[in-house]
């Protein structure tokens, strides 16, 4: 029978600074565990095949598509989701910039987009428009047409330097 006789794996996921010990099945993705075991529904499921970026999280500081990462394989890694970037209730400057620029319409792509932007700005605090566009190449947005997203990220860069 499908699913029967699968051996569970105990893993420790460090998510947004806190350790969670969870039992996972061998085929469970990190996306599945974050959403369905830990209730972090800011992480979205779009395609499940690495193409849309809705499931983006930071793993050890780098943006990756959590739909293609096995939860078992993420054992011991430092994971950041959109729930973890505000500081004691105060929005992260990138979140603020997205709101101010009107870079959010339905919002489905937003968590992934913001995490990708965060990783970019940490590596490169002064990106050109071209570098921003290249960085978000793997995050699809079906609503905005990207112009306001790019603007928000460039604005956020300025805010973060100030």
């Amino acid at each position, binding site marked *: 029978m499908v*699913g029967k006789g699968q*051996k569970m*794996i105990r893993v420790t996921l460090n998510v947004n600074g806190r350790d969670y010990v969870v039992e996972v099945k*061998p*085929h469970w993705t990190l996306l599945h565990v974050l959403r369905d075991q830990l209730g972090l529904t800011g992480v979205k499921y779009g395609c499940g095949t*690495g193409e849309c970026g809705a499931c983006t999280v930071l793993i050890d500081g*780098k943006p*990756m598509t959590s739909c293609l990462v096995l939860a078992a394989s993420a054992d011991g890694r430092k994971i950041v989701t959109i729930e973890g970037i505000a500081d004691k209730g105060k929005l992260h400057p990138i979140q603020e910039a997205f709101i101010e620029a009107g870079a959010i319409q339905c919002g489905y792509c937003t968590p992934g987009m913001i995490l*990708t932007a965060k990783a970019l700005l940490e590596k490169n605090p002064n990106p050109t428009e071209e570098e921003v566009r290249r960085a978000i190449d*793997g995050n699809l947005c079906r609503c905005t047409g990207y112009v306001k997203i790019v603007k928000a990220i460039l604005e956020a860069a300025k805010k973060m330097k100030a």
Partner: protein
Amino acid sequence: MPLFRPKEYFRVATVGEAVSLLKRFGGAAAILAGGTDLLVAKPPHVEYIVDISRLPLNYIKKGARGVRIGALATLNDIAASPELREEPYDVIARSTWDMGTPLTKNFATIGGNICNAAPSADMPPSLIALDAEARIIGPRGKRRVFLEDFFIGPKKSVLKRGELLAEIFVPRAPANTKAVFLKKGRTSEDIAQVNVAVRLTVDDGLCKAARIVLGAVAPTPIRAKAAERMLEGKGLKEISQIMVDVARKAAEETKPISDVRAPAEYRRSVAEVLTKRALLNLMERFGGA
């Protein structure tokens, strides 16, 4: 429909451990490196996952004899590596540019791209053009195979039960060697409809060695050897004059299929165009055009 429901997951700490699990489980086991192919394919026959992602095989090192790239080097590591800036190794970094997205390239590995053995894979052509060798570890120790001989069909390589790819070795190229990689896909992130790597080594104004390697136009990446022979021994001027014929010959050597991505005739004609553009690019860089 059967689903991907492996019974057990193993994360190995040593290559030896990986080899013994792979030997024990044979075809029921799947290696997990980055997982960007495996977790899209989700093959239902897989019962055991052998996660090699923490093995110390993520490196890119240049030595006197050549460049060694660990199987777990990620595509973004390769793109950014200072060891791969210099000609002709820059073609390896260049091959990653249009592969997937910046998000998948943070964990997709070179070993996974090679071992997945897709005829359209973007890393093999430039590596084959540089005469790279696959360094394999298995139950009976280590062995080496030219990457050119590594592939035996779509999704099939020479890896035997218990074996894994540990490293790619790119021998030091002779002086005056330049290479180029070109890819045509529907969008730049998409899987290649055709890709090509061309490498030329020039000495005293004469072409000493040529490689033309085409992907997605046959069951494995192929060398267009008849076209290569047309180039060898020729002067740069002459090459500029016969470039069109060389590209046509290379296209004749392909055996493309029609599928969802492109019809065979289209692949063959794109193979010709890309080969021509690649030669043109090299002629300009060698100052012979």
